């Protein structure tokens, strides 16, 4: 089992994190609320997973304002995009090799 999982990225082990990355891959930047609605998760849940991705350097955060409201947007870093592609590739390889 182990050697097959070579390319799997620990940062994406969690489903929500993988989902966050999927959305960021196809959107230049996206704000917190849109992301929340899309993934159907709670504020706290999303915040903690984004922080985790930020720590690994896969996601960059930009804080701005719309009027007086804070508007935080997220972008996938180049490193994050590369990691995501690797992860998907190994997922595919894993599935191919299993049968």
């Amino acid at each position: 089992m182990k050697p097959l999982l070579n390319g799997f990225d620990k940062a994406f082990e969690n489903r929500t994190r993988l989902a966050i990355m999927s959305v960021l891959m196809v959107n230049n930047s996206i704000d917190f609320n849109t992301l929340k609605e899309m993934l159907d998760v709670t504020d706290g849940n999303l915040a903690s997973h984004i922080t985790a991705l930020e720590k690994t350097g896969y996601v960059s955060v930009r804080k701005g304002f719309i009027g007086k409201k804070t508007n935080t947007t997220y972008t996938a870093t180049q490193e994050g995009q590369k990691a995501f592609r690797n992860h998907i590739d190994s997922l595919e390889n894993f599935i191919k090799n299993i049968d």
Partner: protein
Amino acid sequence: MSNKENQLNDLKEIRQLMDRSSRFLSLSGISGVAAGVCGIAAAVFTHFYLSKEGLRNTFESYAFIDIELEKRVITNLLLIGAVTLLLALASATFFTLRKANKVKQKIWDNTTKRLFINMLLPLGAGGIFCLALLHHQEYGLIAPATLVFYGFALLNASKYTFDDIRYLGITEIVLGLIAMFNVGYGLEFWAVGFGLMHIVYGGVMWYKYDRKG
């Protein structure tokens, strides 16, 4: 659930999320059919109107001799065009809103904005181009030009919605280009491009995406 199924599900979910967050998927097939029906109705109406003015076979290939008649006909044609556009947009919006409600996608989000901007840029340029043709009294080229630019607009916007729109765009461009060389049949090409093609593609999209929903 086996590990393989797990991973397959992950991949499927990723794919769905990527699609849902970057493409406008509420576009309803019925919208296309409705717009097409408006297009054909307008073409038929225009045909009878032009016949009534005694212009049907000469219009577009010859310049007008009577300035009064020219003014009246052009004004009325613009009016027909504007009403058709409004009706087509209204019915398309209605069916798309209905579908957005059903699939629970917000109607005004990033995907819609991108779709509109990418559609409006070529469409706006085309509109101004057609106004220039009108200004220079090149009436025969207006119908083909609207088809070509509409095709470009669809082609450009197709990245942000269903792939079928891409092929509709290419079809409109090809039709428009053929029409360019067949001045005098603008109305017929227009009826096929804006009417028939919308109905065909709308029907296909309805069959592919909406039927089950």
